[in-house]
Structure formats: C-alpha cells, structure tokens
C-alpha cells in the first residue's frame, strides 16, 4: 500500500525531526518533590484593601503560613498600607490632600473599618465585641505574631509616595519598599500560593 502523496513528501522531514530530537529533551519532567524539606513553600499576599474583614484573612493566612514553615511575603499597597502606619499617628502626608485622605481614613492597625456594614463604626464595634467574646485573636496581636514568625511585609514604594507616607510614619520591622517587579518575581517562584486581598 502506498502512502498518499502529501504524507510521502512529509515523511523524510518527520523522520529527520524525530531523529534530531534528543531523547532526554522529550522525557525531561520536573522532579516531583514529595518531602517537606525538599520544597520550600511560599505564600505571597498582595494586601490591597486594608479593611478589618480583609486584614484578618491577610494576617491569619500569613501567620499560619509562617508557622507552617512557608516563606511568607505580604506586599502592602494602596489602602493596605494604612494599617501599617503607627497607631498613634492621626494625620499623615505632606500635601493638604494627602492629609485630608488620612483624616477620612484613619490609619493604624487598631482603627480598621469594615468593607461592608460599617455603619459609621457600629459594624466594627459589633465585630470587635463578638471576636473578643469568642476569643478570636485581634489584628494587633496577629500582626505582632506575624512579625515574630518572620512574615516579611513589603511596602509599595509608589503608593507610599502618593500618600505622602515616610518610613518613620510606618511601624518598625517592615521590609524595604519595593515595586511590582519584586512581587512578580516572588509570585512566580515554585511552590508559591499567591493571594490578592
């Protein structure tokens, strides 16, 4: 039986292609890491919102990850920067508009608002009451635990400038301010889970 013309014409090329491809190249698969020591796991969180009901998962996940041996980095940006301003700072920023913003959204880990049902502070007060009643760790305690466990908090250089925030406005122990390329590099490391909160 003769092969159809097209196939017959292609055959030499196909044979050449197959013979030129080294076997190792075809059969190379990344090694699967089965033991905990072999693979460093990582968690990267982009902490964008800075609201109470979102700071909680950021702090809980990052603290739990660090406690489980994950290399944990939290990139703090936009509204997410404000909880990392020192609690006692009331007004931050250099220009009147920056200062006005901090008046409208009080910075500091103890002054978080809810993303929904805020009701001029009624919502956070109720959630605060309930969480204390049920002995849920509060954001300031979780932040302290996160820092003690080695979670790396990386402030966003660009939004720090835009909000007029200086290093001395921010809590101690934060990483060097950085940008998007730094986060991308972290997020594309192997065995990395990434979250945008």
């Amino acid at each position, binding site marked *: 039986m003769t092969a159809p013309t097209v196939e017959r014409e292609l055959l030499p090329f196909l044979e050449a292609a197959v013979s030129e491809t080294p076997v190792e190249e075809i059969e190379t698969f990344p090694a699967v890491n089965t033991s*905990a020591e072999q693979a460093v796991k990582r968690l990267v969180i982009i902490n964008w919102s800075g609201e109470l009901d979102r700071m909680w998962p950021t702090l*809980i996940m990052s*603290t*739990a990850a660090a*406690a*489980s*041996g994950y290399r944990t980095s939290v990139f703090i940006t936009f509204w997410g920067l404000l909880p990392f301003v020192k609690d006692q700072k009331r007004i931050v920023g250099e220009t009147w508009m920056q200062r006005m913003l901090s008046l409208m959204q009080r910075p500091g880990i103890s002054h978080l608002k809810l993303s929904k049902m805020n009701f001029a502070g009624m919502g956070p007060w109720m959630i605060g009451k309930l969480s204390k009643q049920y002995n849920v*760790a509060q954001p300031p305690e*979780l932040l302290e*635990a996160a820092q003690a466990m080695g979670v790396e908090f990386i402030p966003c250089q660009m939004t720090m400038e835009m909000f007029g925030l200086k290093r001395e406005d921010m809590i101690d122990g934060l990483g060097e301010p950085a940008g998007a390329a730094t986060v991308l590099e972290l997020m594309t490391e192997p065995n990395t889970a990434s979250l945008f909160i």
Partner: protein
Amino acid sequence: MAFVTSADSTTDIVRLDAKGLKCPMPIVRTAQAIKEIASGQLLEVLATDPGSVPDFAAWSRTTGHELVASDVDGGVYRFVLRRK
C-alpha cells in the same frame, strides 16, 4: 515561652496549653514551642478549637513534625508531636 512548662532531657514531654485560643493561634504557639525543644523530643498540645483537629494534621504534614497522637477528652483536644 510563657505557655511551655520546662523539660530537662530529650525524653521529657513538653506541654503547651493552647486551650481557648482560636485559629491560627494554636498553630502559631505550637510552631514557636517546637523550636524550643530538641529533635526527637515530644510536644503535647492541648486545645479547645475543633478546627485544630484538621489543622494539626495538616501542619504535621506540611512541616514534617510527626503527629504521634491525636485524641479528645471532654472537649479538650490533645495532640502529641515529635520534633523532626
């Protein structure tokens, strides 16, 4: 470490009271406590958070510290871990 009662040799079991703590604090305190003991030594953790049952199993698998025992007595969960 305030919660840990002392241990003199590697055969002693170190105890950690995590009763009343909620997620993620039992795991956080455990991770801190296990750093204080020697490899092969046992750490017993008491907790009341029902979520700690799957969490301690997962934590053991992730970190490689063996979960030697896991039981419950009257609403108190007991986990025994061996430091790797």
